[in-house]
């Protein structure tokens, strides 16, 4: 593992000019959008600057954490990442009731713990066991995917429950439990949240060389090693995303109902 990380420095590093040329290319594209009145130029430029700053900041932080090589620092960083991920999930999901932060936090926490305990310690087995280069990057990739999937699933769930309102009330009137009444919405929400993840898993390697594998190969790693790594990461992230999607649904569907199993139409 360590040679993969150190290989990063040896290959073809990008210098300040590289970053500048990249930003210029984005600016040209934004200029085209402006001329053609596509209206995406402002958001595109803003997003580019944000990603540059955020990624550089993350790079510095990870470099710092690797240098410290202390499990507490490493886990503190992961905790901060989880808290930020909760915030991003809640803002990205539209039209969801307030007060779902604990459920989202619990879901993300379970995923990260599963990933660290099962995947990293059983499959990758880094030395030392808390190797920040592995833990932090893996957790970051997982959280990115899980945040997108749970935000989509939650938005879909509450909008679907609203549009299925008469069906839900009919089912409750026939004696259905809240779970039975909510089940069609739960199923369609989990499916919807999983679409990007599954299609990414199925299409990887055909035309698409996923970022992680590309990065390792550019950095000089053996392509076969990189492929195995990429498969483990993609498959594990997909599995954990499915677990996260199911878990968040189980944790939130009840908020559409009262303690007496009545439908709360205004939630």
């Amino acid at each position, binding site marked *: 593992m360590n040679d993969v990380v150190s290989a990063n420095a040896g290959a073809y590093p990008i210098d300040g000019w590289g970053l500048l040329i990249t930003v210029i290319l984005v600016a040209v594209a934004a200029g085209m959008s402006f001329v053609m009145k596509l209206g995406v130029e402002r958001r595109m430029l803003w997003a580019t600057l944000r990603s540059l700053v955020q990624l550089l900041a993350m790079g510095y932080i990870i470099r710092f954490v690797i240098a410290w090589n202390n499990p507490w620092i490493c886990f503190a960083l992961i905790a901060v990442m989880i808290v930020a991920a909760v915030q991003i999930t809640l803002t990205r999901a539209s039209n969801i009731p307030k007060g779902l932060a604990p459920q989202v936090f619990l879901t993300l926490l379970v995923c990260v713990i599963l990933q660290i305990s099962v995947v990293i310690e059983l499959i990758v087995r880094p030395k030392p066991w808390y190797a920040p280069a592995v833990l932090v990057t893996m957790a970051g990739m997982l959280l990115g995917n899980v945040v997108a999937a749970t935000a989509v699933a939650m938005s879909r769930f509450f909008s679907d429950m609203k549009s299925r309102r*008469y*069906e839900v009330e009919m089912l409750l*009137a*026939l*004696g259905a*439990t809240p779970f*039975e009444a909510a089940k069609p919405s739960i199923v369609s929400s989990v499916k919807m949240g999983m679409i990007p993840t599954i299609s990414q898993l199925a299409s990887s390697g055909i035309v698409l060389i996923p970022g992680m594998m590309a990065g390792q190969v550019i950095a000089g790693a053996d392509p076969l090693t990189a492929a195995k790594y990429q498969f483990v990461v993609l498959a594990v992230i997909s599995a954990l995303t499915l677990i996260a999607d199911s878990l968040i649904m189980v944790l939130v569907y009840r908020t559409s109902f009262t303690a007496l199993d009545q*439908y709360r139409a205004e939630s």
Partner: protein
Amino acid sequence: MNTVTPIVLEAAHVTCTVPQPAHAAPAKSPRPRAVRPWRRGASGDARSESHAAPGKTVFRDLSFTVHGGDIVDLIGPSGSGKSTLLTTLALLNPHATATLTLDGTDSAAMTPERWRRLVAYLPQRPTLIGETVRDAITLPFTLKVHQRDDAGAAVREPVPDEGMIRRTLDRVGCDDIELERPPQDLSVGQQARVCMLRTLLTKPRVMLADEVDAGLDDENADRVADILAYAAHQGMAIIRVRHRPADGRATRTWRLADGTLTELAAHDAHSNEEVAR
């Protein structure tokens, strides 16, 4: 007849207070009155439940009993809370409270699901789900409440078979409905009848029919009423909200207005209903 058949449903302290929207000025006194037409306690009107506004009292402390075989017509001006009363009796209304007993058993002694399976609310809007009419009709039997009792033990509740469904459909004048058809293809009148039949086949003790004949032509409305009369004949108690002229099938008539419920004597019922409309 009421003196010989046992009391099926007993209700006391039936109260519903809907929280006012936050922007509305709080009412000076919680005097029960019908302010505007609204549907079912959980409507868009009630935006924030946590907001402890005085709220609008739809009705308060109503008490009544219903016997097996009763067909009760519930009348009253629109907005007086007739639908709310029905959803309250089915424990479906989040804003209502009531002390209810069914055949002597308190509602708190069973799960809300069990209660609703026995005191069945039939919504005004026909909603059928499934590939075929048969699926739509047998849907209730796929629910847990029909497969396990409240203690979790499996129960052997017979799912109505093809012949049974067909016979019941024919008996209640639904011989025009094929079981293989997608339920969406049915006319509104047919859908209303299938919905009613779906609930009927689960054999509830009380059926709460919420304007199920609204928007139907006279012929379909009459068929729907026939189904209910048939059910009452089997010992079911029926409360129905209606906006049509009395059809002579009701054994009792209640009038809900200004938060109070009045039982009308048989000869008053018709004239009062005229006034209500």
